[in-house]
């Protein structure tokens, strides 16, 4: 997920060429307070005409407690991007209120309520405490994300490269997403020159369950893809497991072994997930 500042036409018009799975046009932190109107109008015009190729297009709006949030929604919701990303989400009540406003705008424009989704950003200690309700109570919330910089600021701690201060929050957010069967995206890695650090942090994020990671520079995309894309060996193994599973199931055998290791339902489920990520079907 590539963050693009909403007031930068050059970056927006080139946003689709870098191969990110998702483009995030940012009206919030990446835009100066006295340029919010300019960014909103620019993003509105660009979404209509710029080809972002296969990337999902999301827009991060300002929080409704700011003077800009409602105007952002009034402008962006009628365009129905893939998703609206809502910053500093703290409670299910807040999401309910936000969805009410979004649906009111959609009604006014004759738009359905089931096309555009919502990504809730968890960036405060209160948001972390309430994350399961935020993730699980609404059909339209199809991803949650952690905002590392804002969260550390809210916790009055310093954001460190080892991420120790936000480790509990990361794991709690992942668990809420897994329990709700939605995507969970890790925070950005702010040092664009530290490629090893980015790889290390991305590998950790994958290991604890994140399904993707946000980036602030196109240079970071390849490393993220490299970490999250299953290796050829993993795909071959998964293919073999699923194929054997189908053959054994057809023969009425529930649990079997491959290379001396027991294969049961969780192993098969994991293999199917790898094949899904790799876009491979078992013939």
């Amino acid at each position, binding site marked *: 997920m590539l963050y693009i500042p909403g007031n930068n036409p*050059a970056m927006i018009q080139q946003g689709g060429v870098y191969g990110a799975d998702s483009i995030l046009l940012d009206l919030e932190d990446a835009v100066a307070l006295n*340029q919010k*109107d300019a960014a909103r*109008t*620019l993003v509105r*015009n660009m979404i209509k005409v710029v080809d972002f190729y296969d990337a999902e297009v999301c827009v991060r709006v300002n929080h409704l407690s700011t003077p800009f949030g409602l105007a952002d929604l009034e402008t962006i919701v009628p365009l129905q991007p893939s998703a609206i990303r809502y910053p500093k989400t703290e409670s299910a009540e807040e999401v309910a209120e936000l969805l009410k406003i979004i649906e009111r705008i959609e009604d006014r424009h004759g738009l359905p309520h089931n096309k555009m989704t919502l990504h809730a950003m968890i960036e405060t200690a209160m948001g972390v405490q309430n994350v399961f309700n935020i993730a699980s109570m609404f059909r339209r919330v199809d991803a949650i994300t952690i905002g590392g910089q804002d969260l550390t600021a809210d916790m009055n701690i310093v954001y460190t490269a080892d991420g120790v201060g936000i480790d509990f929050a990361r794991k709690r957010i992942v668990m809420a997403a897994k329990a709700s069967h939605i995507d969970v995206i890790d925070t950005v890695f702010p040092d664009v020159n530290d490629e090893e650090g980015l790889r290390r942090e991305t590998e950790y994020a994958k290991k604890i369950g994140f399904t993707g990671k946000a980036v602030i520079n196109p240079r970071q995309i390849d490393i993220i893809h490299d970490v999250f894309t299953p290796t050829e060996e993993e795909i071959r193994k998964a293919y073999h497991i699923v194929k054997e599973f189908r053959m054994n199931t057809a023969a009425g055998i529930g649990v079997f072994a491959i290379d001396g290791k027991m294969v049961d339902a969780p192993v098969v489920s994991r293999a199917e997930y790898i094949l899904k990520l790799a876009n491979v079907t078992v013939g």
Partner: protein
Amino acid sequence: MKPKIAAQSGTFESSDVIFLIEPLPDNSGRKLDISSTVMQQYGSSFNRIVTEMLDEYQMTDIHLIAKDKGALEPTIKARLETAINRSMERQEGTL
């Protein structure tokens, strides 16, 4: 409509355009000062977009200065709309 205040929008960065709008005395019409790094290739198209938008907003008694660095049509329109709205004191972010 006549601009209420001087206002600007956009930047000098590549692929962007900066607009500056100033109100003129009554019955002055429009005064346009347009320059572009791609004037030879796209100057007539730029002028057309600006004129059409000023017509659409019925803007008069206006001095408009534009410095274009190769902005695409959606950017030109967004920046001009922002400058007009700011000059009418309809949005935040005015000079």
